[in-house]
């Protein structure tokens, strides 16, 4: 391998790692909803795209920094999640009929969100402006583009904050208890429906920040949500449902593999990488590559 190839490899590895950190932020919401609550929210990527567009509106109309805007909008996304969970709980969990119809429900939400975005914004790619979108830092032969570095740091901060919340607050521990044993939760004198509602609200809230970092990294149009469904569930399953550490490890692995594929085989193959990974994981080790066995 000559020097140019080594440079390419180094850059691909670094951008893969940065991309991976961002993938972790995209997945963390599903790690909560699917991994902990067993709610198959396949619409999550669509809410992330919604997050991209709200950040885009704040950025273009008010000139606010997109990531800052997404943090301000966290409560709105939290409430959206609470509303969705309330309907889900009444219509499916109470009736004990969550499987087929529950899946179809979220599939419908995915579709409604996407089509609504198309109707409002059209299918053109949208971009945001921020000081960190253009420049990059150079470390020898390695380029660190800020439009990847800043999202990666924000993503890790988001996951770190969630981890602290899960470990050290009563509600956080109750959410983890509901994941393992609803009966134990009742013994803690907590209402499982209320805890799940909060957890689902949190999972959708993460979509605000994940959406903002997405539109910093790449231009966004409504249908790209679908490319992320595979990534998100591949990472979530590989990471061992509900484990934050596993999610980050799996996300970085996928980021690196995708980035290597794009560098050496061409970008048109990279969507298949995530899904190929997912199919392999499901076929070989459904408990996850990084999860507890």
């Amino acid at each position, binding site marked *: 391998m000559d020097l140019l190839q080594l440079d390419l490899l180094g850059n691909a590895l670094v951008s893969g790692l940065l991309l991976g950190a961002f993938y972790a932020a995209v997945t963390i919401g599903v790690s909560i909803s699917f991994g902990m609550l067993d709610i198959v929210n396949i619409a999550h990527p669509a809410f992330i795209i919604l997050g991209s567009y709200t950040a885009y509106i704040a950025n273009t109309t008010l000139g606010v920094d997109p990531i800052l805007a997404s943090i301000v909008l966290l409560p709105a996304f939290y409430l959206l999640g609470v509303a969705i969970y309330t309907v889900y709980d009444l219509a499916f969990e109470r009736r004990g009929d969550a499987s087929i119809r529950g899946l*179809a429900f979220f599939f419908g939400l995915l579709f409604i969100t996407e089509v609504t975005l198309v109707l409002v914004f059209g299918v053109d790619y949208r971009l945001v402006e921020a000081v960190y979108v253009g420049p990059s830092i150079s470390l020898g032969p390695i380029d660190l583009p800020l439009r990847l570095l800043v999202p990666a740091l924000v993503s890790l901060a988001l996951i770190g904050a969630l981890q602290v919340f899960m470990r050290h607050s009563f509600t956080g521990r109750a959410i983890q208890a509901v994941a393992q044993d609803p009966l134990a939760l009742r013994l803690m004198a907590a209402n499982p429906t209320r805890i799940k509602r909060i957890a689902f609200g949190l999972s959708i809230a993460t979509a605000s920040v994940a959406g903002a970092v997405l539109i910093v990294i790449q231009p966004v149009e409504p249908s790209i949500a679908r490319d992320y469904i595979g990534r998100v*569930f591949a990472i979530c399953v590989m990471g061992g449902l509900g484990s934050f550490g596993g999610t980050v490890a799996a996300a970085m692995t996928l980021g690196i593999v995708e980035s290597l594929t794009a560098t050496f085989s061409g970008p048109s193959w990279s969507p298949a990488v995530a899904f190929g990974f997912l199919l392999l994981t499901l076929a070989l080790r459904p408990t996850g590559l990084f999860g507890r066995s």
Partner: protein
Amino acid sequence: MRTAGFVVLLLVVAAAVFGAARLVDNPYAFFAGYVVLQYIVLATAWNILGGYTGYVNFGTAAFFALGAYSTVALHKLTALPLPAMMLAGGIVSGAVGLGTGYFTLRLRGTYFSIATLAMAVVVQTLITNWSFVGGSRGAYVVRPAEVMGLDYVQYLFLLMLLLAVAAVTIARTIERSRLGTGFAAIRDDEVAAEANGVPTLRLKLVATALSGGLMGMAGAPLPYYVTYLDPASGFSLSYAVNTIAMPLIGGTASWIGPVIGAVLLGTLQQVATVTISSALSLLIVGLLLVGFVVAAPRGIIGWFGK
């Protein structure tokens, strides 16, 4: 009613539909009717797996497009008649269904659903990168003007009509057979089904292969219908949404549910696409899907009967 009587009845209905379409004597009637019939096949096929065994397939578009693309490939290589190509498309999609099922059907149903979603993107990526069938640029297929004295679009309509009759007959026969009882047992409680003698994995594979195969057959005539096929339209998400929405809106418990759903939603979209816009008509489908699963869990057929 015995199966033979039922088939005769369906054929009479089909002949009446075809006769009516010829009476209207407007090419658009055949174009629009073809789409509705195609959705009857897709919705019925989806329901064989989703409604009868309880496994949700999000990958309709992939099975459908595989059928279409096998026709594109055969069209370049051979001069097979279309019915033979439909059979070939069915075999390709059925085999992919069998393969996907073999790897994922041992797992919980949720994983199967996610895997079908993944499979759809993998297949789309493969087709997009396969230049023989046009790659991302798409492929043109020259449609003959007529076949055996019949206008080609009418011929396509007729083939799809017969396929719809076949699909509905298969679905109804399964419902009343030993296979149907086994499927229902799997849907209700898979562990109990296995403990009561039902070979669950084998039956689920039968359902996926059959369901995928019918979707492939429904997709096979598509290149001749559109004359230009590219991955974005062949793998359109609207196929997946419609095929899930139609059985759930019509009702999944019986063969008639998907038919009702396909006729209602299919016609609605044909009208709405012309009069309003195609995006808005898809939005209506999404809203109806969510509305029905939340408020009318047994679909339209749940409003009648017990």
